[in-house]
C-alpha cells in the first residue's frame, strides 16, 4: 500500500483539526470508521491518503442513547451492534434490518453506521479507476457503457446508485444527521444530507473534507408503527442492493395513517417516493392498492440501455414489501 500515517485522535474536535492540519501541510487526509471500504480504495490507489484519521480511537461515539423519546445513535456503532440492539430492533426495525443486510458478519463486526452511510459508490467504473466524474474526470462511463446496475431515477451527469443499505433506512425514518466540522456541530435533515449529481457530481453527500458524520438522531417511534427493509441482491448474500425498499407504515388497526417509502439501488441518493406516500395515506392497504403503489413508484423512471429490468423489479418489490408489511400479524 501507499505510505500513510495513522493518527488516533481522542475527540471528534481533534479529528477535525487533524484533517485541517493535514490539508494545511498540503497532505491528503482520510477519515476512517471501520476502514474496510477505505482500505479497499487505498489498495487500488483510488484514494491516496497521507494521513488516516482513525475515529475508532474515540470513546463514546458508538452508543445508542434514548433522548427525548427518540434515540441518538453514535456514528461509530458497528453494523453488528446496531442490528442486534434491542431498542433499534423493536422500535426502528427498518434500520436494524438494513444494518443486518450489509455484506457479511466479518464486515458488520467492524463496519460502522457512519462508514456505511458515507460509503463511496460501487460503480465498477469508479472502482476500477476510470477517470470519471467521481475520480477527477469529466464523464460518466456508464452512460454508453455497461449500466446494468446504474440509476433509473435522479441520474445525470453521473448515474451511480447510492450503495448504502442503512442510508435508505435513515431517510425513511426522517433521521437527523449530526455533522461535526471546524465550526462545531450542526444538524442536517436526512432529505438534505445526500446530494444529487446535478448538484455536485464529485460527492454523494454534503460533508466537506474536514467534516465527520458524528451520529444520527431519530424521532420517537409512533405507536402502531411497523417498518422493514427488503433487499434484492445479485446472489444470495454479499452484494450491494440491485434494488431495495425501506418502508415505514404508521397503522391504526388496519388503516395506514401514514406511509414512508425510500428506495435503494435505483438512484444516486436514497430515493423517496412521495407520490406513493400520498397514495397510501389514510388507506387500507389491499393487494390492489399495493399493486397501484408499485406502478406509481416507477413513474418517471428513466431507463439506460441495460437497466430496464430494474423498473419491473422495483414495482414488484414495492408492491410485495408493502403488502407483506401491512398484512403481517
Amino acid at each position, binding site marked *: 500500500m501507499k505510505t500513510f500515517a495513522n493518527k488516533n485522535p481522542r475527540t471528534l474536535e481533534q479529528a477535525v483539526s487533524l484533517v485541517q492540519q493535514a490539508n494545511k501541510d498540503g497532505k491528503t487526509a482520510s477519515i476512517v470508521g471501520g*476502514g474496510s471500504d477505505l482500505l*479497499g480504495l487505498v489498495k487500488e490507489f483510488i484514494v491516496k491518503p497521507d494521513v*488516516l484519521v482513525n475515529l475508532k480511537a474515540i470513546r463514546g461515539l458508538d452508543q445508542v442513547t434514548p433522548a427525548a423519546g427518540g434515540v441518538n445513535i453514535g456514528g461509530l456503532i458497528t453494523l453488528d451492534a446496531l442490528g442486534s440492539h434491542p431498542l433499534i430492533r423493536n422500535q426502528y426495525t427498518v434500520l436494524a434490518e438494513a444494518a443486518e443486510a450489509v455484506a457479511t458478519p466479518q464486515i458488520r463486526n467492524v463496519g460502522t453506521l457512519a462508514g456505511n452511510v458515507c460509503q463511496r459508490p460501487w460503480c465498477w467504473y469508479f472502482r476500477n479507476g476510470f477517470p470519471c466524474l467521481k475520480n477527477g474526470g469529466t464523464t460518466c462511463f456508464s452512460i454508453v457503457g455497461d449500466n446494468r446496475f446504474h440509476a433509473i431515477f435522479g441520474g445525470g451527469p453521473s448515474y451511480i446508485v447510492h450503495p448504502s443499505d442503512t442510508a435508505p433506512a435513515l431517510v425513511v425514518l426522517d433521521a437527523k444527521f449530526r455533522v461535526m466540522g471546524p465550526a462545531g456541530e450542526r444538524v442536517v435533515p436526512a432529505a438534505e444530507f445526500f446530494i444529487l449529481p446535478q448538484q455536485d457530481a464529485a460527492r454523494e453527500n454534503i460533508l466537506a473534507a474536514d467534516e465527520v458524520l458524528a451520529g444520527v438522531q431519530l424521532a420517537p417511534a409512533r405507536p402502531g408503527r411497523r417498518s422493514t427493509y427488503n433487499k434484492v441482491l445479485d446472489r444470495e448474500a454479499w452484494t450491494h442492493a440491485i434494488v431495495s425498499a425501506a418502508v415505514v407504515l404508521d397503522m391504526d388497526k388496519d388503516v395506514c395513517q401514514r406511509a414512508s417509502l425510500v428506495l435503494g439501488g435505483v438512484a444516486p441518493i436514497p430515493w423517496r417516493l412521495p407520490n406513493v406516500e400520498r397514495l397510501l395515506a389514510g388507506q387500507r392497504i389491499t393487494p390492489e392498492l399495493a399493486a397501484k403503489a408499485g406502478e406509481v413508484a416507477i413513474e418517471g423512471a428513466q431507463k439506460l440501455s441495460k437497466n430496464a429490468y430494474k423498473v419491473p423489479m422495483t414495482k414488484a418489490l414495492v408492491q410485495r414489501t408493502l403488502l407483506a408489511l401491512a398484512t403481517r400479524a
Partner: protein
Amino acid sequence: MSKRKRDISRRQFLEGTGVVLAVATAGPALKGQLSTASPPEADSAVSGVPTTTVRLVVNGTEHRVDVEDRWTLAELLRDHLGLTGTKIGCDRGECGACTVLLDGKPVYSCSNLAVWADGRKVQTVEGLAQGEHLDPLQQAFVEHDGPQCGFCTSGQLMSAKGLLSRNPHPTAHEVRAAMTGNICRCSNYNRYVEAVMAATGSASTAKRGSSRSTASAEPGAGGAR
C-alpha cells in the same frame, strides 16, 4: 458417522515423510511461545515510513511490535509473527480466507490495519488446538472432509468458532448465514455445514456423504477383479 480412528497422527506424519517444510527458515519458531523479532533484512520496516509500536495478544501470547502504519493485520500475523495459517485469498475483504477473531469476533484481517489491533486480542487458527488436542471444530472438519484444497479452511474455522461462542447450537441455516462471508471455491459448503453441526452435537438435517449401489447388468460389463 463411524469414528474411524485417524491412522496417522500429525507428528507421525511429519516425521515419517521426512518432508522438508521450508517454512520460515529465517523466521521465529512456530510452536509455543513466539518471539517479538521479525525476520531479518527483507521484512524490517524501512526508514521514512511511519511506524507505530503496538501491543497485542495473539493466541494468548503478548507481543510488542513495531509495525508500519500501512501493514494489514494479516501481514503482521503472516510475515512478522510467523503465523502463516491465516491465508490471503484476495486482500480486498471479498473472500474470507484471512478471517481471524478480533476480541472474539470474526473479521477480515486483510481489511484491518495492524495499528488498529493495538491493545486487542487476536485468535488465529494456530490458537484453536490445545497442544496436540484439536478443537472439536477442527476434529469435525477432519472427519467430515472439511478441507479440500484447505486454503479457505482457516477462515471457515474462525468464523465457525466465532459463531459457536455466541450461539452454541445453531441451525444449519444459521451456520450458513454466519459463514457466508467465507468463500470456498472447491465449493465444499455442504461438508463445512455438516462438520459444524457435528461439532455442536446437533442432529443434522444435512445429508451425510453419498449412497452407493452396484450397476445392474448391462452389455459389455467387465468382470470384477
